[in-house]
């Protein structure tokens, strides 16, 4: 397929996933503040930290509170990683490759975009978890339409790689930031509040029920294990990386050329490490360090994809 198309499909999918993750963070946080005692933990600063754009935020908004964080993450037109910016970019990318998508897939994304555009003025005034729940449903609808109407050809696999890398990255970020913020409250360990907060973490990746089925009780180590290494849950980092690896292999198999590819080896290496690391090792070496190295490798895979597939030079 055309390099430009492959790249657009990849980004389209990443951007929808990014928008979805923002909606998830906000939905869960808006729910969380209803349940927890007032002023116990500031839930909004960590959300800004997740983005790694704290300086940008502070310059424009100052101290994080519920109103400005929602505005920033969900509705800020100027912030390129806000939910609406991601959706707009995803839809622009989709428009540029519309002929490679199923009509249903394009139309769903288009409807999604219009839904958010039309609802966001009211939602920005009075953000509710219901609105973000609706957004999350729209993305689930989009994934379903995408899965059911698109041939699983190279384009589909590029979309899957984009989605899985983005998802792995966001899962790692939310774990990292929350871990950092939640762990110091040693006095709370084992209390209802602690339980509530770790549960919220699991809810943010829709993993609460799956976790409960496996472990019943909330324990930090098991939650971390679930986030990093669970083999079957679709938002665990291991699962995301394995799925991206599968798609990359499919892309290479469908390829008719013998060009040297660099993304696969990096991804294989990461997948291997996730499959063979114990949660105790990861915690012993420092959770933050572990997650950081995962994020760096995900970035490297992204760059390697660019060289392998998205920039066909004159001499190739």
């Amino acid at each position, binding site marked *: *397929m*055309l*390099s430009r198309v492959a790249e657009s499909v990849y980004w389209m999918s990443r951007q929808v996933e990014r928008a979805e993750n923002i909606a998830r963070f906000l939905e869960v946080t808006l729910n969380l503040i209803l349940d927890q005692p007032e002023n116990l933990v500031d839930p909004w600063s960590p959300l800004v930290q997740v983005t790694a754009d704290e300086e940008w935020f502070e310059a424009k908004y100052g101290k994080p509170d519920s109103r400005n964080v929602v505005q920033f993450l969900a509705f800020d037109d100027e912030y390129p990683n806000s939910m609406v910016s991601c959706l707009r970019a995803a839809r622009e990318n989709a428009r*540029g490759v519309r002929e490679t998508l199923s009509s249903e897939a394009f139309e769903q994304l288009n409807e999604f975009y219009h839904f958010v555009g039309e609802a966001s003025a009211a939602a920005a005034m009075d953000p509710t978890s219901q609105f973000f729940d609706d957004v999350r449903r729209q993305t689930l609808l989009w994934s379903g339409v995408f899965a059911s109407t698109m041939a699983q050809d*190279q384009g589909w696999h590029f979309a899957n790689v984009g989605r899985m890398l983005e998802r792995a990255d966001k899962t790692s970020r939310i774990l990292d930031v929350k871990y950092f913020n939640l762990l110091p409250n040693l006095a709370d360990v084992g209390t209802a509040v602690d339980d509530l907060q770790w549960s919220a973490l699991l809810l943010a990746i829709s993993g609460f029920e799956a976790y409960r089925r496996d472990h019943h009780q909330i324990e930090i180590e098991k939650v971390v294990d679930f986030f990093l290494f669970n083999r079957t849950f679709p938002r665990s980092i291991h699962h995301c990386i394995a799925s991206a690896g599968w798609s990359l292999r499919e892309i290479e198999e469908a*390829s008719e050329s013998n060009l040297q590819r660099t993304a696969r080896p990096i991804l294989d290496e990461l997948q291997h490490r996730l499959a063979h690391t114990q949660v105790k090792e990861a915690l012993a070496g420092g959770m933050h360090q572990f997650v950081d190295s995962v994020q760096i490798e995900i970035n490297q895979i992204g760059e390697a994809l660019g060289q392998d597939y998205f920039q066909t030079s004159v001499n190739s």
Partner: protein
Amino acid sequence: MQNQSQSFQSQSSSSDMDSMQSQSQTGMNPCLPGYETDCFFDEVVDQKGVARPDSVALVDLINRLPPGELKRRQQAIERSLYQMGITFTVYSDSAGTEKIMPFDIVPRIVAPDVWTHIDSGLKQRIRALNRFLSDIYNERKIIADGIIPATVIDSCPAYLDQCKGLRPPHDVWCHITGTDLVRDNEGNVFVLEDNLRCPSGVSYVLQNRSVMKRNFPQAFTASKVRPVSDYPSRLYQMLRRMAPMENADPNVVVLTPGVYNSAYYEHSYLAHQMGVELVEGRDLLVKDDRVYSRTTDGLQQVDVIYRRVDDTFLDPKVFNPDSVLGVPGLMAAYRAGNVALANAPGTGVADDKVVYAYVPEMIRYYLGEEPILSNVPTYLCDREDDRAYVLDHLDELVVKAAGESGGYGILIGPQASPEERQEFAAKIKENPRNYIAQPTLQLSRVPTMVEEHLEGRHVDLRPYILCEGPDDVWVLPGGLTRVALKKGCLVVNSSQGGGSKDTWVVAQAGETVARL
């Protein structure tokens, strides 16, 4: 929700069908009560507001719909066009507001005999235009024989010196043409202009049809409408056969200027429907006079390009050096016969409004036939007598700039202010070659939704023509009916606020009828 309302529509439509049958049993044509033709020729009803024979089913249905239902269906269609993303962005609006091209729910119906006339006239015209294009870039016999003055051609901005000596395969230059037709107050058909460069709008024809079929299934079936849905496969077949060398599976692509082009939706739609790649200039490169696309597997050769990029942007090495939309070296690859282009570069000379005036002469000269379709009588301001007449009669004439399109550069004399007429008179005197004038035709009208009721609005018609060989010309039975939505307005272009309607060409006995 959408499905529910659709099934509701088909239920209500089946009762429409029953009433239609009862109507036809009585043998009386229904009329549109309260609808005024205002002495204009109306495509759907006669002077008394009574349905023309081919429009009986439609008019009957409109009469039988409960109050407000027509409007409701119109809104349902608008909503679905919006959801399909068949929109253009209003750039003046910072919020990036999107609008659909206005669509009107009442179709235009074309009787079989009218269509036969149009079909044969267009085929004849395309044959002559191809002969003209080959001649004018090679021997120039038509000039030598005194039919067209050399100055007309050499002063034409769309005549490209870079195309001299080109001989496209089978001498076909205009593979895809959209010719604008109008009907006057007697119902006579005239050619208003030929669009041989990158005619737009066929995607609206196909989309309008698909939404109409969903919303008027019974009236559609009862009207025995000819299908348009095979256009993409015919287009693809034609493009495939253009492939330069024996190639069992030629690589056909559509070349677009990109997402910001106003016709981008159409480019994308046609590529999608044909199942071929939509490429931009930056996706292509030329090496050793061959064209390649940049793919995830490296370079892949391209055999046929349906280009929707204007001539002078195609190749910065040959035409506009600043163009970033084209492909450097494309013309050399084309001349070397390694890639086919539809349409051939240079065709624009034949849709210059001054050259247009000579098409009837071309038909006589190249084919030895009388033109089947007439031109609108045209005064060329470059001719002294014509110019004097035009300047004296500006209040009666439509004046058009030869090089403009999209409804720009037009003066509609009877509706213009004295200042506007003076302004145009000055322009004509300054650059007579650039202006033509035509009598103001009272364009035919079609009933059109205005708020809650129907009023007559002026229309034109752009049929689409595919030409594979000199004697292999096919005309899509239908076309884009453009409608001026403003009362009394004679300019139908979408850039001037016009909308579109579905066009129902009624089948003769033995002709294929579209299914739902």
